[in-house]
């Protein structure tokens, strides 16, 4: 457990000292959402109607942006090889790196989301549920993304391939994430959507590290 936390700590330290990943993801998120009022026009009712979907799609794309480098640096400098030779199971390595990735790129999105909701004229009762769905949803994005990142390791133009592999898998998360907010805004209960999101998270938590670890073992061979 100490070793798991040390790996998380190292990745956080690397991300903070390199500094770019977290800010790029959140800047991209903000810019992406800000583009919509320019595109569809500043009509408050239309913006309020599409707010949940726009914020969620932007969050998907933003989290995809930094996924390519989840294992890339460690793979290229030989660290991944050495990590696979420690007694820490590969699944734990994946989980630690995914957790660090989520803390660096996912959490800033959750913090920025209410601000963007104001910008898109979302009514205030949606804010709580927006933050809640993103809190459950963004870890799923990082977890599913880790599979793609592990599979495309060492491939040329891996980033593009990664998007093609992962975006279809993000669809259920998008449906239930945006659906929960819409339900809350229309006076319905968001509970079923949230439960389904929670179910996806509960499934992804053991399965994604397992699949990624298998792909990484292939990559270091």
């Amino acid at each position, binding site marked *: 457990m100490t070793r798991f936390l040390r790996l998380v700590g190292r990745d956080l*330290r690397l991300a903070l000292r390199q500094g770019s990943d977290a800010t790029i993801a959140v800047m991209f998120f903000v810019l992406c959402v800000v583009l919509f009022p320019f595109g569809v026009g500043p009509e408050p009712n239309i913006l309020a109607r599409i707010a949940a979907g726009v914020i969620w799609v932007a969050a998907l794309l933003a989290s995809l942006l930094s996924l390519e480098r989840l294992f890339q640096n460690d793979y290229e*400098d030989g660290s991944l090889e050495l*990590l696979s030779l*420690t*007694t*820490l199971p590969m699944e734990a390595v994946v989980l630690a790196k995914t957790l660090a990735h989520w803390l660096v790129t996912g959490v800033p999105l959750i913090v920025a989301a209410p601000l963007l909701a104001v910008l898109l004229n979302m009514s205030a009762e949606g804010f709580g549920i927006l933050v809640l769905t993103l809190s459950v949803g963004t870890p799923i994005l990082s977890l599913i993304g880790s599979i793609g990142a592990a599979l495309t390791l*060492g491939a040329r133009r891996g980033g593009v391939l990664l998007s093609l592999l992962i975006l279809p898998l993000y669809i259920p998360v998008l449906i239930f994430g945006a659906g929960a907010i819409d339900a809350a805004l229309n006076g319905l209960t968001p509970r079923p959507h949230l439960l389904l999101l929670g179910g996806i998270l509960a499934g992804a938590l053991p399965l994604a590290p397992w699949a990624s670890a298998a792909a990484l073992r292939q990559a270091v061979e």
Partner: protein
Amino acid sequence: MPVFAGSELTCLRGDRLVFTGLDFRIAPGDALVLLGPNGSGKSSLLRLMAGLLKPLRGHLSWDDVPVPEDPDGHRARIHYVGHLDAVKPVLSAAENLAFWATLGGAADPRGNALRALERLGVPHIATVPGRYLSAGQKRRLNLARVLAAPAALWLLDEPTVALDRAAIALFEEIIAEHRAGGGMVAVSTHVDIAMPGARELHLDDFTPVPHDHGEDEDAPHEDDMEGEDAV
């Protein structure tokens, strides 16, 4: 006394048979030097010993227990030093080293890291970020890893690359101490490393077809080729 042995090992890289019918045996205090031209499988054999590669045929055993039956135990008793230095540019040398010492199970990673750097003659780089280190300093930092956490078997792939003469002499001493303490070493090298009583393994003896110099490939190069195949 534990003995690390391999028998009838056959290694396939891509669609090329690298070596076949290879046997080796390393007892405590032994050193095994892997010799042979580029592409004869020195790196592949070391990766096989580390468990990074699976042999096509044959098996590895530690103390007569097959290695695949106890993969965690095997990982805990080896140190592998490959071609890549695994140095993070934004972490200081001591931070880099302490991280690996923690994962290697050292009780006092920070102290071990500083002592290991001292032993390799580079205590002054402890606070220097990885990106400012020279190739030789990075190599010393990577070699310091084997001292920062204890392990019985050292697998060293061309450890002297980029090292100056003084560092090689220092490293010879370190290997001698490790062997005197009952440690084992397997090392591939093109440079002479003084290791009294070391056994030599000529890998070209196990190459299945006469070696074709037209297809001279080094192990990392093969990795690149595989990466391209994967696309």
